[in-house]
């Protein structure tokens, strides 16, 4: 370790403090990443020791999303209101206004993952190549363009920030891909350990099986449809670190851009002391943000993650972080011309009507698009949903899956019910509890009203999500002279929406037999899809759900009804 020779005492103390700060930053990154993953794991109710009362998620599982300023500002632009705990984002906003992008360097789990992967690569990159890769480059403006584009679209009522918001993106990628993959692996190993006991001695199998049981995330395998693109985006982000350290954070991240803009007022900054600098370039070699920390160059404050690598690796005290730093050296904030801002905003505004030429949220709905219970009307839904996938992660029945184009290009990766894979659990309202933005409005079990409760609660005005229909050609009692009515057995409403008539039919040999033929009463059906899930006709089921009858859309109805109050506060 080289210490400044002119003033060894003072500089040594300063260097120690920065190295300690760097360690603090590392610990903070590790803790926040661990917290993020833990909260994702806690987003289900598999624990059997839950008390008799209604299962609730007690951990603040969407904390990171609720602290996310991009989610907050995006939804404020698109809905003119701040939903529930999004107020927490003020912590990050106020902190950034004073300190700069500490979130990126110290808290962001996506940033931490990129940091770690880049460190693997950066360790191998040497000398000039590494220095060049770490210089500020004009491409770092892209992220501001992305930000302006998204915010302009949000102002037009189409919230797309979740596509690239790092917290939403990471939540989605981990919940829909990595946790299920882990789940498949541990399930298979557990099954193997449970069924090889005859071949392998107990003293080996028992601890292995116990350990596997302890790390199983869910008792059932949970897998998601339509995740190919999610995987590609995630892998692409990770792989880009190979070429430029934290490529994503520097070039594309719209949250980083937002925090960069907010850091304009920051009172904490880098002070450069060219007289002390020996031009060793160590600061730039270790820079995470690509903000040119070395004396003699413009420091880009909006790019700095406050990772403390530059000051902790400086042997000369040539740079220092200071409150109210002296600005003898030039400091740049956001490097963006007014023309670029206007053009990106124009593009964001134009994108919304263009996206809506394919599927307009007010157009007749796609029958396959069954939204989770509590979902607000489609137009409002698309102004709130950030595609974080938490509703899909929490669903106990694996019923919710990301869309591809079912909700139009505008609604990609938003949740839809696929009852063939899982039905909507009648007494469950977990998706509405975890939704951080109110795309699924928070409802109670009583408001859902699918099942009569012992403690009262009406089922007369349930929150419907769709209606079931028979495909007579595939239904066993309707077309194959076979007994079945599993659908009726599973129908959860009281009285059951599925009823049957007993009819006498002749089979192929001419024998008479009595069969129970099922029917749906659309006045009672809530669209849960339990019938579709349980239908023994594999492949296309003999009973299927479409969105018609959903409470949230007063136009999407079959039956003539007396105007009933919509539960979405519609009237």
């Amino acid at each position, binding site marked *: 370790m080289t210490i400044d020779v002119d003033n060894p005492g003072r500089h040594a103390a300063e260097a120690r403090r920065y190295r300690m700060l760097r360690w603090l930053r590392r610990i903070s990154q590790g803790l926040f990443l661990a917290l993020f993953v833990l909260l994702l794991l806690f987003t289900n109710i598999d624990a059997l*020791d839950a008390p*008799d009362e209604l299962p609730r998620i007690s951990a603040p599982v969407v904390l990171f999303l609720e602290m996310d300023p991009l989610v907050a500002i995006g939804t404020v632009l698109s809905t003119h209101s701040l939903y529930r705990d999004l107020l927490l984002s003020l912590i990050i906003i106020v902190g950034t206004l004073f300190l700069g992008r500490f979130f990126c360097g110290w808290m962001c789990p996506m940033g931490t993952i990129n940091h770690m992967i880049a460190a693997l690569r950066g360790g191998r990159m040497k000398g000039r190549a590494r220095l060049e890769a770490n210089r500020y480059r004009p491409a770092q403006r892209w992220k501001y363009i992305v930000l302006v584009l998204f915010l302009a679209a949000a102002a037009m009522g189409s919230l797309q920030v979740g596509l690239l918001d790092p917290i939403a993106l990471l939540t989605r990628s981990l919940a829909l891909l990595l946790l299920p993959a882990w789940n498949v692996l541990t399930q298979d190993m557990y099954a193997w350990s449970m069924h090889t006991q*005859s071949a392998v001695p107990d003293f080996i199998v028992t601890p292995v099986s116990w350990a596997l049981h302890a790390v199983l995330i869910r008792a059932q395998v949970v897998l998601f449809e339509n995740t190919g693109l999610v995987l590609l985006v995630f892998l692409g982000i990770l792989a880009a670190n190979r070429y430029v350290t934290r490529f994503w954070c520097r070039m594309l991240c719209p949250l980083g851009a937002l925090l960069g803009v907010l850091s304009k007022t920051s009172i904490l900054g880098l002070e450069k002391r060219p007289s002390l600098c020996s031009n060793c370039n160590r600061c730039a070699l270790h820079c995470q943000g690509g903000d040119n920390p070395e004396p003699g160059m413009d420091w880009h404050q909006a790019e700095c993650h406050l990772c403390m690598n530059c000051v902790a690796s400086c042997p000369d005290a040539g740079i220092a972080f200071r409150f109210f730093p002296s600005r003898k050296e030039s400091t740049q904030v956001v490097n963006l011309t007014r023309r670029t801002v206007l053009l990106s905003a124009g593009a964001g505004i134009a994108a919304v009507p263009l996206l809506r030429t394919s599927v307009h949220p007010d157009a007749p709905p796609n029958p396959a698009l069954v939204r989770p219970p509590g979902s607000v009307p489609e137009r409002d839904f698309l102004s709130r949903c950030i595609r974080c996938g938490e509703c899909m992660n929490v669903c106990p029945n694996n019923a919710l899956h990301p869309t591809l184009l079912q909700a139009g290009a505008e609604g990609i990766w938003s949740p839809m019910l696929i009852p063939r894979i899982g039905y909507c659990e009648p007494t*469950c309202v977990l998706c509405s509890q975890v939704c951080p933005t109110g795309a699924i409005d928070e409802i109670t079990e009583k408001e859902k009203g699918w099942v009569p409760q012992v403690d009262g609660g009406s089922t007369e005005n349930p929150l419907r999500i769709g209606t079931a229909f028979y495909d007579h050609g595939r239904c066993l009692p309707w077309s194959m002279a076979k007994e079945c009515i599993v659908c009726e*057995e599973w129908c959860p409403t009281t009285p059951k929406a599925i009823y049957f008539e007993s009819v006498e039919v002749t089979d192929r040999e001419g024998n008479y037999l009595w069969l129970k033929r099922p029917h749906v009463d659309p006045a009672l059906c809530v669209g849960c899809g339990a019938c579709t899930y349980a239908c*023994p006709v594999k492949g296309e089921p003999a009973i299927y759900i479409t969105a018609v009858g959903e409470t949230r859309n007063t136009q999407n109805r079959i039956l003539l009804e007396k105007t009933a109050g919509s539960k979405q506060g519609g009237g």
Partner: protein
Amino acid sequence: MQDEPVSRREFLSRSGKAAGVAALACVGGWWLHEPERHPFARRTEAAVIRDLRVSGITPSLVVGTGSAPAAVTAAVLAGLGGMDQFISKGDTVVVKPNIGWDRRPEQAANTNPDVVAEVVRQCVAAGASKVYVTDITCNDPTRCYNRSGIAAAAREAGAEVLPPSEARLREVNVGGAMLGMQKVFDVYLEADKVINLPIAKHHSLTKVSLGMKNLYGILGGNRSRLHQDIHNSLADLGNFLRPTLVIVDAWRILLRNGPQGGSLDDVEERRSIVASVDQVAIDSYAGATYFGLTADDMPWLALAERYGLGTAAYETLPMKEVQA
């Protein structure tokens, strides 16, 4: 191109290696080729019958009524001669209540938790080394196990509550007229004793759901196909798993909208518990007594009789009524 002659040493060593690997491949292939014999087999083709009845017990029917489910259950078990008759020291016991639906005890879709707890306590007192309480539910297992009150009650009584687990299903040939290879929860294949603990409730297809219908819950996989020949399927299940004891919970019975129910208007309080070692007689008795059905209304009884599982003519069995 290479024209140099191969040395004798090299010829021997290379041929030897090839022969050695080939021999290993042959041995390995032979070892693995029969799926039933290899040590990692998850399927067994030969039919399995799990007859867990205790020999030397004369079948009888004991019917208890009273003011508290646990006390009546205890009285009924005492009326049968005590749990030690059925459970030996060190036994692994599976108690199989109906936990199929996300319903509270008052809604009478699941077995009464007090009855389950009392049976568990008696098993523990009789010296069982392990008592499992489990069911493969229809609704979300966490909700069913908790809302039914069974998870808490059973655990407090000393049982290990086993949630359904895909990984613990084993495909076996249950050897029935309709049912062949089925995915069965592995505890039933390893337990020493099984106590079947259904609730008496309405079911649209079978008119009533009782003991043999409750055995549905030992199966995973695509079990909704069983409805296509439900009577043979029920008899096949009873034939595959012949429980040590059947206790029918008729404390509250569900008269309509079964098997889930929901409305308390569909529930009737009968305050009765019935027990027998004859799984056919007890279904016949409970169907007749609580739902007014004859044996002809319950065709699976005759099919089960044909397997020699018991008699549908429950009147021929000695009957004891107890009060608690």
